[in-house]
């Protein structure tokens, strides 16, 4: 329990120096990823095992082990990195631990089978050699795999809270806002609104009581960048919020985190407790006379609460219904007071900008989109995980060089970005450089960074149906266009997937899309038609196939496909017959056939067949 709080930059520096002195840069250290993804694959046990093994062999002086947050390469979890050389091991098993200790930790030798191997057979020894990481520019996520998120001293050792010291000791509030404005930082939650301008409006708003909020609600299915950041480097978010609150003049902050992220909640609370202990939160921060504290509010499970006014209603203890924002929340937000809300990723950028300066940040990225973007690269891509790249990186680079291309050697079809509010970008636009404007021009959006790769076996009409279904369920129900409009859009798209729709319905669908987009109360409704509109724009032929030919070219929509057993591949093993829940498979000697009248195309037989003898038409 720390008695004395850190009150001056000098005290912070001397603490940091003393911590750095205690660290032997040459002492081997195994860093185990304890992010949610790797944890689900048993990395917590691996961590315990390392600890036990080191203790058992009495090696605490020679080697150490440390837990970290998400390293980002989730496909290959459990992931560990061994310093100081930064040897990268993937798909680590519990049984590998003793060998890693004796071979790598003690003798500096690599365990070959745990190294990342690319499709050509080339192995990577060090983390920076791994193709997944090579083309990334990890700034916000830089320390995700390096620090123990539950230990503030790790954060201080790598320079944490230096930006806060600098801001409070050497900069005026005006200068801080100016810096953020000039840096070009834009909101990372999806809207991409200029952060500095938002801060300025909040600072200038009338009122003595102001609030800042960190939005960690991350409702987009397929996005987990906020989760990773909150789990792995919670202090970076806190530091950003304190700096922002100081500049704006807010004395109370809230972190709104989805209840579905228990580890993030835990780590953020630990970080807040420790920050208070050290004086980075609380009264008279860095002797500036500025008081500020942060409370954590959990979400209750509603996608709409990612919308700022709904989020604020939720914090106030009400249903997450958005309200009109003709008067911005920076003027009247939480309890009608000026409130500055930013996504947690946006907050985490702030200490970097303050520390490294405007020019450093402004050099990264494109003219209108500065800095880096963080994306959850998932779907039919080989290297799924968390990616941070400079704005302006081509989609192709992200999907092929970093992502390692499409799984099972299939063809790329589209990449869905921006979550349910976004759209699908087709192959012909793969050279598109990722930034706010380019994605919006293409009919999609940056959103919260979801990037879902789709291959030739994806039905784009089904994708539109999927997102509409999701949004329909998540609509708060307050306004007519969203509540009724998305319902009717879903009805029509579902009919299309069943081959029950004609041209008239397609026209009606487009009418609905226009109205829902223009007339809905909040961003959820206003962006709900986006997936439909973008798939209509680029994949009209698939819609036509469903409507005119009553066929699903990708072989997904159950009502429009048939399963047949290929005679030349079927060996008569009977695996399918045993499992068919509809008893739709008959055997005539060795020859097996599917009765189309009974078959519901559930796919169980296809999974079971060892010879891929069941084809979809």
């Amino acid at each position, binding site marked *: 329990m720390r008695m004395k709080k850190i009150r001056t930059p000098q005290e912070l520096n001397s603490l940091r120096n003393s911590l750095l002195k205690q660290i032997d840069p040459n002492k081997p250290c195994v860093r185990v990823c304890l992010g949610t993804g790797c944890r689900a694959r048993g990395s917590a046990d691996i961590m315990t095992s390392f600890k036990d093994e080191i203790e058992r062999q009495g090696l605490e002086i020679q080697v150490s082990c440390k837990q970290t947050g998400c390293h980002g390469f*989730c496909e290959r979890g459990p992931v560990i990195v061994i310093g100081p050389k930064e040897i990268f091991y993937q798909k680590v098993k519990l049984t590998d631990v003793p060998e890693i200790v004796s071979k790598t930790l003690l003798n500096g030798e690599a365990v070959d089978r745990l190294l990342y191997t690319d499709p050509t057979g080339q192995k990577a020894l060090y983390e920076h050699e791994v193709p997944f990481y090579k083309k990334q520019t990890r700034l916000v996520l830089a320390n995700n795999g390096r620090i123990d998120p539950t230990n503030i001293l790790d954060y201080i050792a790598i320079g944490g809270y230096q930006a806060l010291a600098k801001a409070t000791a050497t900069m005026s509030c005006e200068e801080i806002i100016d810096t953020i404005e000039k840096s070009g930082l834009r909101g990372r939650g999806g809207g991409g609104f200029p952060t500095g301008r938002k801060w300025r409006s909040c600072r200038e708003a009338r009122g003595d009581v102001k609030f800042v909020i960190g939005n960690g609600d991350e409702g987009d*299915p397929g996005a987990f960048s906020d989760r990773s950041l909150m789990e792995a480097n919670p202090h970076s978010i806190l530091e950003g919020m304190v700096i922002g609150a100081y500049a704006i003049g807010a004395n109370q902050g809230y972190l709104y985190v989805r209840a*579905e*992220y228990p580890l993030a909640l835990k780590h953020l609370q630990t970080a807040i407790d420790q920050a208070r202990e050290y004086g980075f939160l609380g009264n008279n921060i860095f002797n500036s006379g500025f008081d500020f504290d942060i409370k954590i509010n*959990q979400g209750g499970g509603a996608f709409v609460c990612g919308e700022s006014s709904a989020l604020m209603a939720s914090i106030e203890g009400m249903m997450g219904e958005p309200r009109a924002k003709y008067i911005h929340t920076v003027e009247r937000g939480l309890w009608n007071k000026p409130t500055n809300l930013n996504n947690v990723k946006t907050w985490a950028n702030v200490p970097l900008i303050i520390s490294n300066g405007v020019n450093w940040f402004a050099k990264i990225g494109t003219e209108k989109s500065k800095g880096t973007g963080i994306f959850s690269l998932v*779907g039919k891509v080989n290297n799924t995980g968390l990616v941070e790249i400079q704005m302006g990186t081509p989609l192709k680079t992200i999907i092929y060089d970093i992502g390692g291309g499409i799984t099972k050697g299939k063809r790329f079809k589209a990449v869905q970005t921006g979550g349910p509010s976004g759209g699908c970008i087709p192959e012909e636009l793969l050279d598109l450089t990722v930034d706010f404007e380019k994605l919006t021009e293409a009919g999609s959006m940056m959103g919260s960074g979801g990037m879902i790769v789709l291959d030739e076996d994806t039905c784009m009409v089904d994708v539109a149906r999927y997102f509409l279904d999701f949004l329909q369920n998540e609509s*708060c129900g307050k306004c007519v266009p969203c509540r009724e409009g998305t319902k009717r859009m879903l009805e029509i798209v579902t009919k299309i997937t069943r081959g029950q729709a004609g041209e008239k319905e397609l026209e009606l669908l487009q009418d609905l899309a226009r109205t829902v987009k223009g007339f809905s109360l909040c961003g959820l409704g206003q962006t709900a038609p986006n997936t439909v509109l973008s798939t209509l724009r680029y994949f009209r032929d698939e819609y036509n196939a469903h409507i005119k030919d009553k066929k699903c070219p990708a072989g997904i929509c159950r009502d429009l496909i048939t399963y047949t057993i290929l005679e030349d591949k079927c060996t008569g093993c009977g695996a399918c017959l045993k499992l068919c829940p509809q008893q739709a498979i008959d055997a005539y000697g060795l020859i097996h056939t599917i009765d189309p009248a009974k078959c519901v195309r559930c796919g169980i037989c296809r999974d*079971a067949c060892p010879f891929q003898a069941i084809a979809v038409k």
Partner: protein
Amino acid sequence: MVENASEYSKVDEIIKDHSYEKSALIMILHEIENLYGYLPAWALKHASEKLNVPMIQVYGVASFYDAFHLTPRGKHLIRVCLGTACYLRGSARVLEAVEKELGIKDGETTSDRKFSLQSVHCVGACALSPVMVVGERYFDKITPTKVRSALKAGAG
């Protein structure tokens, strides 16, 4: 569930821990849900009184969010992820398989109160898709044929 003085005092403790703040309603409901597996009507009424929040608002909040349930749930909570990454890798069929195996639909509880089934949108483990969580246990790359054994393992 018999409400007696000790149950009321449990709820009182929770509300006191949150300093009787109206804005802590959602967190308070989370804790009540954790305690009882759902939100009993008597607990909601008690919370409304203690927090001085209109009953209709408490009821509205309890009905709006996915985390809250107004009827008792099963001992083992099964969550099948229908997030985009999982859906594309076939999790909808996994959901169907679980529905078939347990004889209940999404959002329902088995009559013996052993299992509750809930589809969710994204547990944040997209690289492991398709994902099914039974209680606290994650099953990655789950397929319809693996459902039965996963349920046994998760409940056991």
